């Protein structure tokens, strides 16, 4: 029994729904109690789909349990076929129906429906959403792709895109971006599945020369099956980030035996990242959490393409634990493999990052900890299903990633200026030139004791009872410092003096403090 408030993944039947909803002409008959239809609103609200998900729920109730829930299932399956005339049906049980042990596969078979019926075993008490999606795609490929057949020699090789589903993080636009990239390389796309595919399309999976695995969480079992049954190799690199996209291109060229002649699209990321405004990004402490695929991609981008320091790395995808642990070693940190958001919250707080890259949950944790954050992985809320084109994959994806990671941070010059002005008391004691100044003209150089309470009263109270006094020379020296850093210099010097119990601030103290606080 696990005490849970937030779950990174839904139950496995949600994964099956993501496959069914991504496809066309496939219907899912789900043996489930009344109430499980809540899942519809994930698709109609978060992804803003304009149709109901193609799912018929048996919605059995307590009164059905005494009689025959198997009959309820058969009625629902028959009615679903009559109403929707799907080209294929998948059947499965949600957690409660798994307990009552009706056998949806066997029951559906006895109906003799005039379309393929593919049973799913969803193991609701040991597996989760991504596993459910992967299992469903695997069963569909197994059930519909047919026997291995001869593939004719073609001028342009043919590939399947495997893995995009409904409710996938940026799957819609990743498909477009990678299709464009493959086309530019000289590869045509045979079937994209499950998103956009029909059951009839799946019967053509075997026509492709190879498979592109976009999201291993969903596509890997199907790709491995197709490799074995149809002799189709599959790509191992997920093209998120410049380096990964280049590696992906090399991998595709190798698999498809393509020359390196094609002219490829480019990305702004390498130059944006080299431009001087990005210098301040160097060594920014970043914490990365999400699904395995996106976390591994983000780690590489952070390390090689933006120049962050990775101070935390983790995933809720246990299937990827080994790879994520390996990658964490590059940064001398321990990978965080957990699906408990409280563990993640604690790890973030302990790591003191300057930027968090994560899911919707990390967005909220960051809000609570007042840290900048960007979303890199599912689960996400409605705002991460944007109206605009926003892929993560390929070269345009790299542009999107650069913008979305950097925007929560302050831009370089902006940060520099604000950093100087933030603690500048002269700057704050005057009202804005847009307003009326009620503040009296400032004394030449007020001492710490004379300053308004706003200047860190707790720090002052906690240190020596005697406030250090500026010597005349030190005061003159301080005036030579440009006004926009003067406040900071004064504050730092006084803090330095208090911490050392100095009663007088001399010119020497001023420069000692500068040396102490300077980076």
């Amino acid at each position: 029994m696990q005490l849970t408030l937030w779950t990174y993944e839904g139950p496995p039947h949600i994964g099956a729904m993501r496959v069914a909803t991504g496809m066309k002409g496939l219907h899912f008959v789900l043996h489930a109690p009344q109430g499980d239809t809540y899942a519809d609103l994930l698709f109609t609200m978060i992804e803003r789909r304009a149709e109901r998900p193609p799912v018929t729920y048996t919605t059995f109730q307590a009164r059905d349990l005494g009689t025959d829930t198997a009959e309820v299932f058969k009625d629902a399956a028959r009615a679903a076929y009559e109403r929707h005339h799907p080209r294929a049906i998948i059947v499965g049980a949600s957690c409660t129906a798994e307990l009552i042990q009706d056998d949806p596969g066997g029951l559906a078979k006895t109906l003799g429906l005039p379309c393929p019926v593919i049973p799913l075993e969803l193991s609701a008490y040991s597996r989760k959403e991504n596993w459910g999606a992967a299992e469903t795609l695997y069963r569909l490929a197994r059930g519909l792709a047919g026997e291995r057949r001869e593939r004719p020699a073609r001028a342009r090789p043919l590939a399947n895109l495997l893995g995009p589903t409904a409710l996938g993080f940026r799957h819609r636009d990743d498909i477009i971006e990678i299709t464009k990239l493959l086309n530019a390389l000289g590869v045509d796309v045979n079937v994209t599945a499950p998103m956009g595919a029909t059951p009839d399309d799946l019967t053509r999976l075997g026509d492709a020369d190879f498979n592109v695995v976009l999201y291993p969480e969903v596509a890997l079992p199907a790709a491995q099956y197709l490799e074995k049954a149809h002799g189709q190799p599959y790509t191992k690199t997920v093209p998120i980030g410049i380096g990964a996209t280049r590696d992906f291109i090399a991998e595709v060229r190798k698999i498809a035996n393509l020359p390196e002649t094609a002219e490829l699209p480019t990305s702004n990321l390498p130059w944006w990242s080299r431009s001087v405004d990005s210098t301040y990004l160097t060594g920014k402490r970043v914490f990365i959490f999400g699904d395995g695929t996106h976390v591994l991609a983000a780690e590489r981008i952070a390390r090689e393409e933006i120049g962050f320091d990775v101070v935390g790395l983790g995933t809720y995808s246990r299937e990827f634990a080994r790879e994520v642990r390996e990658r964490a070693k590059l940064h001398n940190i321990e990978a965080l493999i957990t699906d408990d958001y409280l563990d993640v919250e604690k790890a973030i707080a302990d790591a003191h990052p300057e930027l968090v890259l994560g899911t919707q949950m990390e967005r909220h944790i960051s809000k609570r900890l007042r840290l900048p954050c960007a979303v890199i992985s599912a689960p996400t809320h409605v705002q991460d299903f944007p109206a605009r084109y926003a892929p993560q994959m390929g070269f345009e994806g790299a542009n999107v990633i650069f913008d979305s990671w950097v925007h929560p941070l302050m831009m370089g010059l902006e940060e520099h200026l604000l950093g100087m002005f933030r603690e500048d008391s002269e700057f704050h004691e005057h009202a804005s030139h847009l307003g009326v100044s009620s503040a009296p003209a400032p004394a030449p150089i007020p001492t710490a004791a004379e300053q308004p309470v706003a200047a860190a009263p707790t720090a002052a109270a906690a240190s020596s009872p005697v406030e250090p006094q500026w010597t005349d020379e030190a005061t003159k020296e301080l005036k030579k410092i440009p006004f926009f850093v003067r406040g900071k210099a004064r504050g730092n010097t006084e803090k330095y003096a208090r911490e050392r119990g100095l009663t007088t601030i001399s010119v020497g103290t001023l420069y000692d403090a500068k040396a102490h606080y300077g980076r």
Partner: protein
Amino acid sequence: MNESVSIRPHGDGPAVHHERGQRSVFCGLTGIVWLHRKIQDAFFLVVGSRTCAHLIQSAAGVMIFAEPRFATAILDQRDLAGLADVHDELDSVVGRLLERRPDIKLLFLVGSCPSEVIKIDLVRAAQRLNAKHAPKARVISYSGSGIEKTFTEGEDACLAALVPTLPAEPATAAPSLMVVGALADIVEDQFAGLFKDMGVDARFLPARRADAMPAVGPNTRFILAQPFLAETARALEARGARRIAAPYPLGAEGTTLWLKAAAETFDVPAEKFEAAIAPGLARAQMTLARQREKLGGKTIFFFPDSQLEIPLARFLAREVGMKPVDVSTPYLHRALMAEELAMLPAETRLNEGSDVDAQLDRVREKRPDITVCGLGLANPLEAEGLTTKWAIELLFTPIQGYDQAGDLAELFTRPLARRSRLEV
């Protein structure tokens, strides 16, 4: 699986069709989302599956990030293998939870479909845990499972479970008024004020704190503020309390009749009653007159959701001139709905139960001006050119009483106004 039988009711009101089929509704667990806000020192622990946790997470939206007082104890393979362990596991989960949240005074163990199907005895678990943790924290159980409860029935089950634990009112006590059903605090305060002006001291179930729950006894008169509280009403009657029959306090008329039923029970003089309601009633009528211009003559279709459908249809028909063409409710408790049914236009098609495919066929055929439905149906229907009002908002928004009457009507005006604005 589709059945539709028409039965003439005994009393007034339209004929009732009974439908059975696929139900597109929330389960009773969803009630936790508003109940935990109402009872400020209660915690709701669902004993269920990952699906239950995912459901509450999806229904609670951003609320999930605000340290809410609910959680799910997710059953896993180990719990299913040997039932004996489940109680030990539950004890340790509850122990840790109460240790971490010492502010919790009332813990609800909430049953789910999986816990019901494998027959985890939560009643016994609650007794055992109560013996262990009382008086610091009391433990009570109820079922919110989809196989037994539809959406708002979760609140009914919760309050019904609370009733046996309410303090006993002495048999010699003066007659007292209990208002039953979770209301937004602002609405509760308004009603308390109105009753006070009439010289009636009203208490509310549920109270905002576990130790402030109202007492009950043979001199208690209770009035339902929500229509879905059949089991709670029975439990209160079992403790000797008597129900005041009334329509529900939606709209100016509904609120007046509701208050009046209580006032008459407590022999409030007519002048005193009129004086108490006059300002609120006048404000409500003024705001409703404006909404009537926008909504008058428009047809409305209700999918089944919360059991609020009939009072809402009655309000919209009588106070802003809408035409309810098809009203479905998940359950119809005839005794609790008698006053409402008598006021519903006779030509309304009234349905009890659900067959979502049949309802979709009807809504497409009738093409109402507004369709009230769940979030799983709203966008698909909008895409078909129908204007929708998503129903769940009617549970989370303060809608009862005089000063909310205009807001309630406005919830239906807004989608229409939006549709007429958009030109793309």
